[in-house]
Every structure is written in C-alpha cells, then in structure tokens.
C-alpha cells in the first residue's frame, strides 16, 4: 500500500506536552499544576444565555462570520478595552477558539518559502500551523534575562528576505511574560521598516497584573493595517469548552480568512455565540473577579518558589509562572518526571514549549489557594531532597 500520510505531517514532531500527559494520566491521585485553562466554571449568567438559546430554537447555522450581535459586541469591546477600531462587518469574524484563527492566519498569509518568526517558549501550535500552511518557522529563543520578552535586536537578527510574518504571543503561555507599550513600540518600528505582518495572539489579554494593562500592538501607529489580532473567550471568561474565539484585522486579510473558514468550518458553534454575547455585554465583573483571584495566587506562588531558593521572575500575565531549576542540576524533563513519581505533583517541563525552555518549568496557578498550598509543600520537599543529593 502506498504511504497514506502527507510528508509534512509525517515529519511533524508530536507535541511535547502529549508525552507528559500520558504519564500523568496513569497516576490517578496526582495533584496537577499542569493545566492551561481556568479552574473557574463559566459564569452562570453566560451558561443560562446558552441554555436560553436552545429554548428559543437557536440551533441552526449562523452567518459564516458569526452573529452580527456578537461581532458588534466584539467591536465595542475592542474599542473599550484596547482602543482598537474594528468594523463589525469588515474587520471581525468569529472562530472556533483562538486556535482556528492561528491556523487560518497562517494558511491565508503564507506562500511556499515564506518564513514566520516564532518567539519561544510559546504555545505549542504555532510551529505546526506554519508548517502545515507550507511556510518555514524561524524560531527566536527568548532569554530569561529579558524576562522572555522579544527584543528589537532578536527580531532584527531573525529577519531575512523570506520573512513574511511575526507571531507575537503576549501575555505569554508558558512564561507569563507580558510586553509593555514601550517594548512593543520597538517591535512595531522594526515590523514597519521591514514590512513584516504580525499575528498577535492576545488570548490572555485580560489577565495582566500590576499597573501595566495590556497593550495591543495593533493600536500602535502604522500597525493596525499589518496586524491580525487573535482573541477569544476561553481564558478571560472561563469558556474553554465552548470553543469560541475571533480574529480582527484589515479587511484585506480578514476577508480571505473568512473565505477559508467558510469552506472548512462554516460557522462557530451557535450556542456558544449567544452565550458570548452575554459574556461581553455583562461579563466585565466576572473577568475582574477571576483576575483578582489569579493575582493573589500568582503573588503567593512566586513568593513560595523564591522562598525555596528557586529563581522565578515576576510573571505579570496569563496564569503561569516559569521558575528556573538549573540550580538543581537536572533537566526540566527529569525534574518534572521525578516530581511526579516521588511527590505526585504534575508540572509541565519548559521544553514542551520550545528547546529554550530547558531548565524551566511551567507552573499553572489556575488552582485554588488550598490546592496550591499542598502542591507547593510537596515541591518544597522534593527540592530540599534534591539539594541534599547534590551536596553528597
């Protein structure tokens, strides 16, 4: 029989997180700090709106771009929160999670040979999406000393004549790093000068802590027309299972993304769209409530990890911290595996998000304080034991 599989897919590495997932799944009583989704349930008034949509018989397709009410709310939300002007008919469409929008943006922008700059550590699906779209991924290894932010020099060094696009993943999963307006201005300057498009994955935009609120690179002068902003409801409104996201950008690109979406997906789930309208109309207080809970856990976690003697920069976004374990003279994979077997706590090795994640761990704080306390006690025990081993 002939090889049934496409060569790009055959060559694609399986997700590093998958391997770890398989080990963890066998341990029924493990405490996990390895989850990339909110611990909160979707706010009830949002769920009710979904239920109500069934009762009204709203069980059909919507328009390809999504419900006009929802696009209208997204338009208002982008203006209200980030000062971005997007027309609900020309610049916005609703996707099946942010993930679909990442995939579509690559498929629509790339021609064979085009390069996409992907800063890592970052979310696992950027590189595969680039490859599937026939592009080439140019990885930038972000540095701990820069708190895993992308610098102008790093970007300049990665650019060559094939570079078409930059994927900008901030606030960042897995590092929790954010980029300030000033830092984004440096990046924007390069993108404009070198004529580079930007896909800005802002799925964690509502989850920033401290004085600095999230700035979208699309709001900087000269960037609106070259940026696709990807966002959604999963993280901000605890709606991961509803599979709902959206893409905003210049009509030139959005129109083509919508064309592919129309053939591949038809439309995002109708129930989820009705629920999302409610989330945007009346959900700001939920977002604030959850944000404030995450912030407390974040401070608690960073303090505890530092007390253990682990280096941990102050992550100000998403719901992850990214401590360094190099002082324990083991790889991320060894640490995570031993921690799991010896103390039954699951964390994700930094290497699951790129080679430069070696020496780091992603610890999620989408868990209650009580849960974090137990897990941290076990991590502390493990770290102390490891230190004693090294001393011997």
């Amino acid at each position, binding site marked *: 029989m002939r090889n049934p599989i496409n060569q790009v897919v055959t060559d694609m590495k399986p997700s590093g*997180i998958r391997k770890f997932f398989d080990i963890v799944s066998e341990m029924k009583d493990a405490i*996990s700090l*390895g*989850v990339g*989704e909110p611990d909160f349930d979707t706010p009830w008034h949002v769920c009710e709106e979904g239920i109500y949509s069934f009762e009204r018989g709203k069980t059909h397709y919507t328009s390809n771009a999504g419900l006009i009410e929802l696009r209208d709310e997204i338009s208002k939300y982008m203006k209200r929160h980030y000062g971005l002007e997007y027309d609900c008919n020309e610049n916005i469409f609703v996707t099946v999670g942010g993930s679909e929008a990442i995939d579509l943006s690559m498929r629509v922008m790339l021609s064979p040979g085009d390069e996409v700059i992907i800063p890592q550590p970052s979310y*696992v699906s950027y590189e595969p999406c680039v490859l599937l779209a026939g592009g080439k991924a140019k990885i930038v290894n972000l540095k701990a000393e820069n708190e895993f932010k992308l610098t102008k020099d790093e970007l300049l060094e990665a650019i060559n004549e094939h570079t078409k696009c930059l994927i900008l993943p901030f606030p960042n999963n897995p590092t929790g790093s954010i980029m300030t307006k000033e830092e984004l201005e440096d990046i924007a300057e390069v993108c404009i000068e070198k004529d580079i498009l930007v896909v800005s994955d802002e799925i964690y935009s509502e989850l920033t802590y401290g004085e600095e609120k999230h700035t979208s690179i699309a709001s900087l002068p000269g960037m609106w027309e070259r940026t696709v902003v990807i966002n959604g409801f999963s993280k901000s409104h605890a709606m991961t299972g509803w599979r709902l996201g959206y893409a905003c950008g210049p009509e030139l690109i959005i129109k083509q993304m919508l064309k592919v979406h129309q053939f591949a997906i038809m439309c995002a789930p109708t129930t989820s769209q009705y629920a999302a309208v409610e989330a945007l109309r009346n959900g700001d207080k939920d977002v604030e409530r959850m944000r404030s809970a995450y912030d407390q856990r974040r*401070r608690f976690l960073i303090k505890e990890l530092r007390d253990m003697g682990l280096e941990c920069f102050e992550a100000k976004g998403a719901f992850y911290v990214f401590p360094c374990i190099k002082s324990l003279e083991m790889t991320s994979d060894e640490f995570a595996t031993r921690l799991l077997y010896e103390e039954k706590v699951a964390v994700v090795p930094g290497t*699951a998000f790129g080679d430069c994640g070696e020496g780091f761990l992603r610890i999620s704080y989408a868990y209650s*304080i009580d849960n974090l306390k137990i897990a941290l006690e076990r991590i502390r025990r493990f770290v102390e034991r490891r230190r004693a081993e090294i001393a011997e």
Partner: protein
Amino acid sequence: MDIEILKAIDQNAKLTPAELAAMLGKEEAYVAKEIETMEKEHVICGYPTLINWDKTEGERVTALIEVKVTPQRGMGFDKIAERIYKFDEVEALYLMSGGYDLTVMLVGKSLKEVAEFVSSKLAPMESVVSTATHFVLKKYKQHGLEMDSEKEDERMLITP
C-alpha cells in the same frame, strides 16, 4: 480598614497572616495588625464554620419566622429585636422592609421544639403582633458556598 483582606478571608477564614500577606503583596506584620484592629472594632465579628448539618447524625431543624411587631416609642425596633436575639435558639435576626418586620432564623432539635419556642416565647411577647413559621427543608447554598458540591476538577490533568 483593608477591604482586600476582608474580601480574601470572606470565603476562607483559614488563611494565615503570612499567606494573606503573600497573596496580597503586603507585609505580614501589617496584615496581622489590620486583622487585630478589625477584630477589635467588630468589623470582623467572628470565624464560625460553615457546616452541612444534613450530613451529620444530629437532629437539627431550621425555621424562618416572619414576625410583625409594634415598634416601641423612642426605641424603634431595636429593643424588641434585642429581646428576641438574646435567645440561644435564634441563629440570625434581620429587620426587614415590606410585609413584615423581623426575620428570625431559628434552630432547634425538632419541629416540636421550634413550635414550642414560637408559641411559648416569641408569640406571647407584648410587641409581637403575629408570626408565620416556615421550616427549612434543604439548604442549597449559604454564605456564597454550594452546600452539597463535591465537584471534581473535570479538567484534563495536563493541557497546553
């Protein structure tokens, strides 16, 4: 008065000053001092435990009693309210707007005991005009917490 501290302990009284300090980004000594002050000023009135008595062997019934009273000259409702809430059986007492004046939450061992209290203690009070007793059949949610939620974390253990 630090509202952030209050919000944090409202749902979890077991947090220590050290933990609260870490969570709120404040000094432990400051948190301890604030809590002490708020206790003294009766902003924090106590730390009771939320117990689901339905799951225990103990016999226990709760009743909500609507009470209409005649307020007393110069004292309003406070005097009569005090006479009622001083009873150990009274778990909570609220002054209400609307169709009646006081809500009395009463705890007793049995329906009979509660009925006895109403007929022998509450109803005969001079200022009490009428009472209507409603027994609580099941408590679903109290103090913002779902009483019977043994909810498992349904998330997969590891996700990207």
